[in-house]
C-alpha cells in the first residue's frame, strides 16, 4: 500500500462522522436563509453558518492531521466577523 491510499483511509475516522453531522447543521441553517421573512433573519442564518464552518474546518484539520486548516479557520473567523459587522451597520442605516 503506497502513501496516498493510506492517507485516504486515515481520513475516515470519528472526526469525519462529526464533520458529516456539522454539514447537516449547515443545511438546516441554509433553509432559514432561504425562507427568512425579513433581512435580519437571513443575517442571523449567515452568522450561524459562519460559526459552524469554523468548527468544521477545525474538525477537518484534526481528521486529516494537517495544521494549515486550523490557520484557515482563524482567518475565516476574523473575516466573517468583519462582514457581519458591515451588514449590520448597513441594515441599521444612517451615517457610517
Amino acid at each position, binding site marked *: 500500500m503506497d502513501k496516498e491510499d493510506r492517507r485516504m483511509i486515515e481520513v475516515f475516522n*470519528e*472526526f469525519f462522522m*462529526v464533520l458529516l*453531522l*456539522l454539514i*447537516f*447543521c*449547515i443545511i*438546516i*441553517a441554509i*433553509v*432559514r436563509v432561504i425562507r427568512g421573512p*425579513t*433581512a*435580519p*433573519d437571513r*443575517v*442571523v*442564518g449567515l*452568522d*450561524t453558518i459562519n*460559526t*459552524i464552518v*469554523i*468548527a468544521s474546518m*477545525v*474538525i477537518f*484539520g*484534526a481528521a486529516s*492531521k494537517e*495544521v494549515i486548516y*486550523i*490557520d484557515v*479557520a*482563524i482567518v475565516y*473567523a*476574523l473575516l*466573517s*466577523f468583519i462582514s*457581519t*459587522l458591515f451588514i*449590520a*451597520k448597513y*441594515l*441599521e*442605516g444612517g451615517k457610517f
Partner: protein
Amino acid sequence: MIFEVILYIFLGIGVFFNLLGSIGLLRFPDVYTRLHAGTKCTTFGSIFICGSVMILGIKMWYQGSTDGSVLTIHTAGAIIAILLTNPTGAHAIARAAHRSGVKPVKAVIDTLAKNDSKKNKKEKQKEIKK
C-alpha cells in the same frame, strides 16, 4: 485511554449543541429568539469541538509527536477568535434589527424604543438651540 474518553464526551456535547442551535434557528418565531438560539448554542458547541481537538493535540504531544503542540496552540487561537468575534457580531445584529423596525412577536412593552426616541428628541432640541 482517559484522553479518548474525554475527547469523545467533548465531541458529543459539541455536536449536540450545534444541532440544537440549528433546529432552534429553524423553529423559533422571531428574529431575537432565533438569534438567541443560533448564536449562543453554536458558540458553546464550537468551543467544545475545538476543546476536543486540543485534547487530541495534547494526546499526540504526550505520545511524542511534534505536530501535537502546534495543533494545540493553533486550536487555542481559534477558540480565542470565536470567543472575541461571535458575541460582538450577535449584539450588532440585534441592535441593527431593532433600529430597522423589526418588533418582537407578542411584545407588550418596548423600553429601548422609548429611550431611543427620548435621545432623538434631545438631540433635535440641541440642534434647534444651536
